[in-house]
């Protein structure tokens, strides 16, 4: 069944997605710096190019030309591998994201998703679990006490919040009656799940904030305690990969929020693709906004909140959702 055209279309989709995602990640960095600057009554980077728009390029050049430093006592191969793990797992998750309803082009129906797996949700959960390896291995391989502490914290944090994230997705799957993301999007008309099940949405938002290891949950890097946490010993482009991975992660998590709770591409007037991106960018902005607003949690507060509040709450939510669904039928 696989003809040449299908292969070409898949390749084009891959290249497009990769290009768009990477550019988006780079400019998300820039946007974050500008927005944070404005939130703190500063200007932010505005020197490179008009309005500082070439700043991401300058950053890349800087990162590429910096010395790639390998600590003498580090575990060389794991040390080199870890940054890749962090960014690649994030990119792979885009395989299941449905950007818009299938397009009809050249008489063919082209699905706007690389691969519409019928277990898309599980695939996403699996990859997000894999992402923690980058942090843990990077922290361990550096052979530095700060890195190690950062790695351990990252591991603990991600494992804890993965539970509540997964549990908050159970109602979504229950309501959509499918693991396929496309089906989930389709199930959200007319009302998105964020409105139908706000508790699950809230839990999911908190959990992905923790998953992204960003403020207020940036405990693995905690600058004022751990220097730079798991990536203390990294420099140059290897640090860049961790850095980019974080922002790709933000994008994928925003996309997933869009897909699971905000109704995906659906929306009035504008084309579905635009709606999707608008929603995704809005969630990304929320991430930046949160960083500009909230202080970092303490490690014990984080654990306490995750295990003693969030997980029981999401379990309750699962039961409640199930009960309601049962009642409706």
């Amino acid at each position, binding site marked *: 069944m696989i003809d040449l055209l299908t292969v070409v279309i898949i390749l084009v989709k891959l290249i497009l997605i990769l290009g768009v995602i990477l550019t988006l990640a780079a400019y998300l960095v820039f946007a974050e710096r500008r927005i944070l*600057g*404005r939130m*703190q009554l*500063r200007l932010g980077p505005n020197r490179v190019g008009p309005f500082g728009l070439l700043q991401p390029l300058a950053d890349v050049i800087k990162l590429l030309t910096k010395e790639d430093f390998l600590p003498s006592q580090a575990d060389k191969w794991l040390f080199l591998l870890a940054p890749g793990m962090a960014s690649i797992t994030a990119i792979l998750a885009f395989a299941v994201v449905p950007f818009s309803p299938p397009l009809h082009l050249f008489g063919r129906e082209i699905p706007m998703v690389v691969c519409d797996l019928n277990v898309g949700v599980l695939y996403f959960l699996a990859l997000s679990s894999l992402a923690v390896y980058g942090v843990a291995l990077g922290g361990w391989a550096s052979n530095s006490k700060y890195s190690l502490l950062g790695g351990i914290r990252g591991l603990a944090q991600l494992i804890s919040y993965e539970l509540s994230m997964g549990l908050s997705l159970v109602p979504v799957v229950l309501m959509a009656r499918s693991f396929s993301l496309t089906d989930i999007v389709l199930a959200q008309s007319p009302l998105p799940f964020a409105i139908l099940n706000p508790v699950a949405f809230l839990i999911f938002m908190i959990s992905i904030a923790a998953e992204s290891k960003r403020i207020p949950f940036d405990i693995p890097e905690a600058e004022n305690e751990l220097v730079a946490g798991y990536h203390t010993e990294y420099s140059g482009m290897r640090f860049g990969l961790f850095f980019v991975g974080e922002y790709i992660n933000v994008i994928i998590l925003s996309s997933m929020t869009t897909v699971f709770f905000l109704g995906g591409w659906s929306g009035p007037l504008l084309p579905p693709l635009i709606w999707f991106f608008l929603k995704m960018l809005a969630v990304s902005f929320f991430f930046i906004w949160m960083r500009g*607003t909230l202080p970092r949690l303490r490690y014990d507060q984080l654990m306490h909140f995750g295990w003693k509040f969030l997980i029981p709450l999401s379990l309750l939510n699962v039961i409640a959702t199930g009960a309601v669904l049962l009642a409706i039928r």
Partner: protein
Amino acid sequence: MNLWRGIKGSIQPFGITFRNIFRKPSTIQYPEQKRTPAPRFRARIILTRDPDGGERCVACYLCSAACPVDCISMQSAERPDGRRYATWFRINFSRCIFCGMCAEACPTLAIQMTPDYEFSKREPLTLVYEKEDLLVDHGGKDNEYNYYRHAGIGVVNPRGGNPDEAPPVDIRTNLP
């Protein structure tokens, strides 16, 4: 109540940060826009002279003792007229943190800080300022003070010649 406060405290800041986005940033674009520092601004250090044109510095080592980064060094010596002075005096500005402790410690008002903050160099060694680089020909912020007119050891004025001093005692006087 606590819960409510927690929720409120978590939500309210979002409003504040969001409002800030639309306010005017307070950034000054430095090389194009410049600020006039206040006269007491703490930047490049100078060694001033007293109103009579003499070096104020008596090389008492108090500035080097007060300096938290140990960037001041000197060697004191005596002039034929009994004046204590620095044969060499060196400030390593590549170390200096411009904290102003030296100026604070200076008992003769010799070492003072100026608002001249633009003197970065590419070569760190050129930031080691010697006495000839530091010594200026004015009194800095206080033009009136002359330490030796207050210290009663007879350097500028003869012994007992300062305004608050009695003439030297004659120990063999007949007066009781």
